[in-house]
């Protein structure tokens, strides 16, 4: 009888290793940003604005990935921006996942009116226009990293709640759970030993792509002035700033985009490990 026991398979281990190294690398960059970055991220130099990356004509190795419209070094901003993006992505998902998991588990187990109430609560949050929610909360509380994490976490919890509840419903009907009930295992034991590990696959995958999504949402709210202040570099802010220069100084937005791609890759590969296969 399978209980979600992990099976070691060589190719998966390689994938997981790559993913984990990428993620650990990013975390390291975030922590050591001031040591690694060649320039201060906010140092403006209007005389050097919009310089292309070093390997192109007009570029210089002083600014390996070029400079943005205010003459700030793109590479340094990219490195410093890792911190904000990781916090927004990881923090937001952590909040959404915790809220959602609690709500979903309660809903799936309690059934009856408790389930209906919690699911309707999710409906209300889903129905609230996301923009209005962001504008209202950030407008009242003020733009800051913590508030952005809060808003994203709360706005996204219904997805996790519905996923979690759906998984509970599905697993309750699965053979091994029925067997565990038949042999008299306690509810708690069933949940921790059988249900949660089997939910891990789905929740891990959802967490992974929601994290990437949140890093992108941060760009969206950043463009509206509802994210972290401009003195704090973030990939989202860089994407938003570079939006108008895509056809001319393409490097301003492209490198943060590649950074997001890398982070998404790492997280997804790591997710395979959490999936247990």
């Amino acid at each position, binding site marked *: 009888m399978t209980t979600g026991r992990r099976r070691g398979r060589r190719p998966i281990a390689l994938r997981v290793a790559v993913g984990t190294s990428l993620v650990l690398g990013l975390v390291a960059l975030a922590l050591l940003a001031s040591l690694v970055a060649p320039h201060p991220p906010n140092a*403006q130099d*209007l*005389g050097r*604005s*919009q310089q292309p990356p070093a390997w192109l004509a007009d570029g210089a190795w002083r600014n390996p990935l070029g400079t943005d*419209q*205010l*003459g700030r070094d793109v590479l340094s901003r990219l490195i410093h921006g890792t911190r904000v993006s990781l916090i927004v992505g990881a923090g937001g998902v952590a909040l959404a996942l915790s809220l959602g998991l609690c709500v979903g588990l309660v809903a799936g187990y309690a059934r009856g009116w408790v389930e209906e109430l919690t699911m309707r609560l999710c409906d209300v949050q889903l129905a609230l226009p996301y923009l209005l929610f962001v*504008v209202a909360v950030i*407008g009242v509380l003020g*733009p800051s990293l913590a508030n952005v994490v809060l808003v994203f976490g709360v706005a996204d919890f219904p997805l996790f709640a519905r996923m979690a509840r759906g998984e509970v419903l599905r697993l309750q009907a699965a053979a091994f759970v029925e067997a565990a009930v038949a042999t008299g295992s306690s509810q708690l034991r069933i949940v921790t030993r059988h249900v949660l590990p089997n939910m891990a696959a789905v929740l891990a995958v959802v967490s992974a792509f929601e994290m990437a999504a949140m890093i992108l949402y941060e760009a969206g709210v950043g*463009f*509206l*002035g*509802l994210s972290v*202040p*401009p*003195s704090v570099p973030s990939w989202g802010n860089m994407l938003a*700033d570079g939006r*108008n*220069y*895509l*056809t*001319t*100084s393409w490097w301003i937005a492209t490198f943060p985009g590649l950074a997001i791609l890398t982070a998404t890759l790492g997280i997804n590969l790591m997710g395979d490990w959490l999936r247990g296969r």
Partner: protein
Amino acid sequence: MKRRHVRLVVALAVLALGGTLREASAQPRGTLTIGIPTDVTTLDPTMSPEVNSLNVAFSVMEPLLYLDPAGNVKPLLAESWQVVNDTTYLFKLRRGVTFHNGEPFTGKAVETSWKRSQEKQRANRQPFGSIGRIEHVDDYTIRIVTEKPDPTFLKKMANVAAAIFPPKFLAEQGDEGATQRPVGTGPFVFAEWVKGDHATFKANPKYYLPGVPKVQTLVWRFIPESAARVAALQTGQVDIALRIPPQQVAPLERDPNLKVSSALSTRTYYIAFNNLTTGKGTPIVDPRVRIAMNLGTDIQGIIKSIYAGNAQRVNSLIGNVQFGYDPTLLPMPYDPAKAKQLLAEAGVPSGFKVGLACPSGAYTNDKEACQAIAGSLQQIGIEVDVQIMESNHFWDLEAKKQLPPLFFDGVGDRYQDPDEPMKGILTPDSNWTAFDKKEFTDMIAKGGSTVDPEQRKKTYAQLARAMQADPPFIFLWQVKNFEGVRKRVQGYTTRPNESMGHLPFDVSVTD
């Protein structure tokens, strides 16, 4: 027939034929499509002051007067007018004009429309604020008495906000009809409006001026995303694209099917100092500090890097294309050494910390400009905390005077005259004023209370100098407004105040 008579008849026949040929060749032809940057919400010019909505409305309805490119007032629905005295105007209306729905154009229509425009719930009632009485003289003559002498009155009456609606139409269809299916006397007739997508108008075959309009169909496409607007121009989906950001202009200049048209916008940008609320008790109360901040901002450098040189400095808040602009007054120079000296004299030799609020996405490159200005001021020791806000939230706080002691904004100008903008940002009456000094308020009142142009020019020149001596703002720039035009379009020019009223009269398409 006598030979003399034959020659006369032949001459008359040739004239008549020539006349008909001229008329025939002046038939409207082709479709003109314009890509505009806003989502129009109403076609009723009394309900929104937003320039693009007004331009679309201008296709269908007309005011009594018309502004030519040099800023002179010309007749339109008013055949002629007389300035009786400082506060009284007599308009003689054009005869034989009918509205698109068949109603006749008479003084009654003017009265009904203007009374309606003055109602308190009209968002765009401001041009009518100075009208005291509207007097009916006869069917085609109307007398207006203003409450006080208003030097910009005639220009206001040339604005599409003063457009004339047919009275029966208003009575029957009300606000909803005026917003969704407007009827006027204009060169185009409303055909359809698909909200969020486009609005279409067809040439008015019964328009009272010959050869107008020159195009058969006029389509306004709403394309808020600038990159998409530029792409639509390049593919030919639109013939004219408005408000092109300066960094997207270069590829268009290289395109053989396009020409780039530009004009210096009347909108003047500034950093406002607040001495009314949040700025009280801070170092900026001292005029030397404010002069230092003007001297310490590298405006030319910012224009070069952020706007690629496509902006022009202003010497005060009276802009370069406005009436009363004094070109002999130079903009305040960039002199960081002097700035530091002044700061020391004012008692803050090592600078100070101050907040600067900035709207996001409201104006071209607003965020970048604010950050660049902060970077400049940093060099003279002033630590600026840039707070970027969503635009509408920003304006909400600005009106409540709750923004930090510095904020970035721009002031537009529909009539190319400093009276309204100055009243709007420097007199205590206005929501948008953050700086109060009696000397300025008095001078602005003086400039706006007489109709004598020479006297006004003197007053505004004095005001500009007074502002440099005790700056209520950091004086920034006016930005060049870029528009893209396909080669098939003839006769189009960009106006500094972004008005498109000249379209039906000047613009045609070849194919």
